């Protein structure tokens, strides 16, 4: 008996093509269905049309039948009979879905009162019970907190509590974990699974990440440009996809899971860059009296050989970006020393010599934001050259060559950045960084904002650049699949400290630090037979403002002993890795 049946759904906006083109699917009672597709494929539009939340200028036709009744285009009064009580939605960004001025508990209370779900004297109890049910730590206190006082993971738990408070029969989750760190993601997915078992709620899980679907959904739907290209049991899609697009999608997901980088680590005699005991800290904005120093990076040591790629991984707030910004001189280093090709590297970027600046270039996360919107592509690419050798630039030819090198058509040179796609813009940013022939390229989440196939292309471009020019790279990312594809060595950071520094392969096969192990376990694997490991005991990262004493990871560590809370562990050398853990020698992870 199907709970929700969508048939012949079309959605269009004035002046554009159909965003949803003849969509048909159904969700049975208590069933979990995954809806995947790249950005712009119409996933969110589908969710909004089911909830009756499409913008007013959208034109929708077809049927959305919920429990025997067509609710597409139904008046608000009718829809409110369904919302919360029979179906609910959880959005990607919990901060913008919660009202910043109202305490968390009160927001739940208002839902209960609005829908007359319980008697007035039971409201508080019911809200609190729901917050406890979604595993919010210290629920009594959080009940009185404002949304900004909670972490991203806790906010998403509150959203789930709000969505499930009316015990709906259908929960739509639109990219519920995309904005969260992997360790938190696995906890939220585990929570959704538990609650679903408990309440027998049907789930429509919308995501771009096949790994998330694999362990959570019985059936999956693949959307491409607004049309359904595949609809089958998850296992069948993974083993024998019938459509070319889903085949490519599965192949890409598996490749990034499995394929290690088939490259030997180069062994240069002299490192290009040597960092010793680097400390980076800055003042957190606030009242002068209460201003505090945030220690973003603490006592970090690393070296990079010519032609080598070192990936820096860690959750948000681990100090990855601060490390990168200190190396290039956008943030001052408080202590420690850096040497570039044997010469000391000090001061902010403005006080460094032109040669030093030329040797260290950076590619940023947001491809469009890192290009000046008021400059044309050729002006952007030629600027580094005019700054470094004024008056001796054959602009047209150089721009043409630079664009060709990153695989772009020279005809794009007169465009503005907003006229490019994300992938094209990132290629321009890479071209700008490479025209100076740097020794080290620092990529700060350079592919995080890009879709799957474009991401592959950019990684491939960086790799071939490295092979041709012997460039070294520091590759900052939170995505372990990317790490495996591009890096020779990996530096794992947690709250500003190094946990593990290892060869890429041995890190994935034999991690030595419990945090590395937790990160690896948390990555959802695109294989329905493996599923997801739930790290429910892991909890969330403490604030960087108040790092725990001793080993910073010990409050979240399953293996911690008394000593971990007192002594800061040193980075110790093991066979193929270096780990900063007191118990690294005895543990078998």
């Amino acid at each position, binding site marked *: 008996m199907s709970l929700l049946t969508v048939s012949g759904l079309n959605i269009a906006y004035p002046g554009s093509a159909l965003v949803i083109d003849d969509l048909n699917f159904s969700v049975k009672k208590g069933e979990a269905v995954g809806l995947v597709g790249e950005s712009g494929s119409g996933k969110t539009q589908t969710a909004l049309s089911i909830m009756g939340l499409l913008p007013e200028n959208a034109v929708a036709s077809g049927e959305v039948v919920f429990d025997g009744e067509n609710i597409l285009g139904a008046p608000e009064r009718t829809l409110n009979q369904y919302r919360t009580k029979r179906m609910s939605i959880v959005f990607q960004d919990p901060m913008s879905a919660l009202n910043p001025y109202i305490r968390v508990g009160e927001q739940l209370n208002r839902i209960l009162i609005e829908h007359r779900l319980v008697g007035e004297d039971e409201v508080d109890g019911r809200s609190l019970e729901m917050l406890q049910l979604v595993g919010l730590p210290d629920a009594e206190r959080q009940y009185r907190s404002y949304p900004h006082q909670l972490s991203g993971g806790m906010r998403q738990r509150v959203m789930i509590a709000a969505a499930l408070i009316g015990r709906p029969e259908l929960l739509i989750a639109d990219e519920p974990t995309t904005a969260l760190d992997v360790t938190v993601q696995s906890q939220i997915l585990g929570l959704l699974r538990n609650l679903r078992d408990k309440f027998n709620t049907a789930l429509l899980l919308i995501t771009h990440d096949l790994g998330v679907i694999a362990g959570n959904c019985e059936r999956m739907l693949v959307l491409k440009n607004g049309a359904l290209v595949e609809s089958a049991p998850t296992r069948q899609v993974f083993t024998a996809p019938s459509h070319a697009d889903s085949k490519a999608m599965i192949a890409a997901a598996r490749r990034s899971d499995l394929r290690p980088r088939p490259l030997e680590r180069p062994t240069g005699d002299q490192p290009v860059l040597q960092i010793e005991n680097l400390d980076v800290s800055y003042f957190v904005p606030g009242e002068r009296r209460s201003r505090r120093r945030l220690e973003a990076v603490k006592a970090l040591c690393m070296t990079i050989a010519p032609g080598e790629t070192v990936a820096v991984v860690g959750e948000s707030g681990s100090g990855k970006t601060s490390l990168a910004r200190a190396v*290039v*001189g*956008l943030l001052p280093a408080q202590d420690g020393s850096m040497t570039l090709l044997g010469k000391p590297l000090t001061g902010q*970027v*403005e006080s460094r010599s*032109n040669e030093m*600046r*030329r040797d*260290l*270039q*950076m590619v*940023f*996360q*947001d491809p469009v*934001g*890192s*290009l*000046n*919107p*008021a*400059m*044309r592509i050729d*002006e952007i690419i030629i*600027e*580094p050259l005019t*700054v*470094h050798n004024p008056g001796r630039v054959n602009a047209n030819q150089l721009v043409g060559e630079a664009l060709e090198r990153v695989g772009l058509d020279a005809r794009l040179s007169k465009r503005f950045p907003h006229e490019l796609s994300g992938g094209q813009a990132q290629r321009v*940013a890479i071209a*700008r960084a490479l025209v*100076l022939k740097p020794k080290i390229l620092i990529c700060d989440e350079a592919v995080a904002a890009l879709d799957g196939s474009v991401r592959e292309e950019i990684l491939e471009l960086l790799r071939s650049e490295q092979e041709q020019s012997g460039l070294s790279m520091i590759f900052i990312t939170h995505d372990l699949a990317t790490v495996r594809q591009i890096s020779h060595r990996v530096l794992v950071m947690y709250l500003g400290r190094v946990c593990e520094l290892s060869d890429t392969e041995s890190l994935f096969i034999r991690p030595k630090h419990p945090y590395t192990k937790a990160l690896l376990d948390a990555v959802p694997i695109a294989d329905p037979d493996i599923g997801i490991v739930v790290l429910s005991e892991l909890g969330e990262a403490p604030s960087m403002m108040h790092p725990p004493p001793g080993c910073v990871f010990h409050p979240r560590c399953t293996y911690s002993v008394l000593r971990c809370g007192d002594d800061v562990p040193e980075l110790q050398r093991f066979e193929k890795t270096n780990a900063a853990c007191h118990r690294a020698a005895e543990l078998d992870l």
Partner: protein
Amino acid sequence: MSTGLVVSGVSRAARRSRSVRICGGILLAVAAVAIIGPFISPHSYLTTDFNGTFIEPTLRNYHLFGTDDLGRDLFVRTLMGGQVTLLVAIVASFVSLVIGVAYGAIAGYAGGHIDAIMMRAVDALYALPFIFLVILLMVVFERNFLLIFVAIGAINWLDMARIVRGQTISLKQREFVDAARLIGVPPWRIIFRHITPNLLGVVIVYVTLTIPQAILVESFLSFLGLGIQEPQTSLGALVNGGVSQMERAPWLLLIPAVLLAVILLCFNFLGDGLRDLFDPRQDSR
């Protein structure tokens, strides 16, 4: 480059917004008539004719708007007044634009102590009572045209500097500025090549909203007798003259007043329209 950007931005705005199109068209028409009109008309703005005072608007002898108490042709005088008013407004706004953008962008980009000192100076200037300042200037120096531009420009740039500084501070944190710093682009070049062109949207909108302000200030000064001096005239001065003859010859007040109102309204609508179109939050539409 940046002028190209302005032109393309404004023309895009004109295509997309009817109010921008209509108001821009009216203003261009007024400016064109004000410039060309006096050449075509057989009368001069300063020729008096004591046999032909207080003629009502008529087609005879081409006194389209009639004549004033000295027998001067009001049509030509209104157009001359329109010229002066538009000129004062545009020059004053341009002065405030140049000073304000440079000052605000430098303060915002430099930050820290330099920013603090520069912005406190702005605060101090805000505290000066403007009208008394102008009256003082008029008394100390000769009353002249130039002084009005300077006086009006000198207050308007303060607002502009504040707005530009705020925008600069948010632009400074964008990644393309970091990228320019890494390349080694010197600070002055970052300010004028990377930051200022991205301020243009805000600045253009703000300028179209300060122009009516400048017109009003000029009219006010002229009304007080501190502005433009006879036989030169401005719309404010004409309104002032018209008030004293209001009962005998109402057209002397009505015609310049209506033209002044039309110009003010058009600039205000233009500014509003441009503001809506340059608002980045509406980009997604």
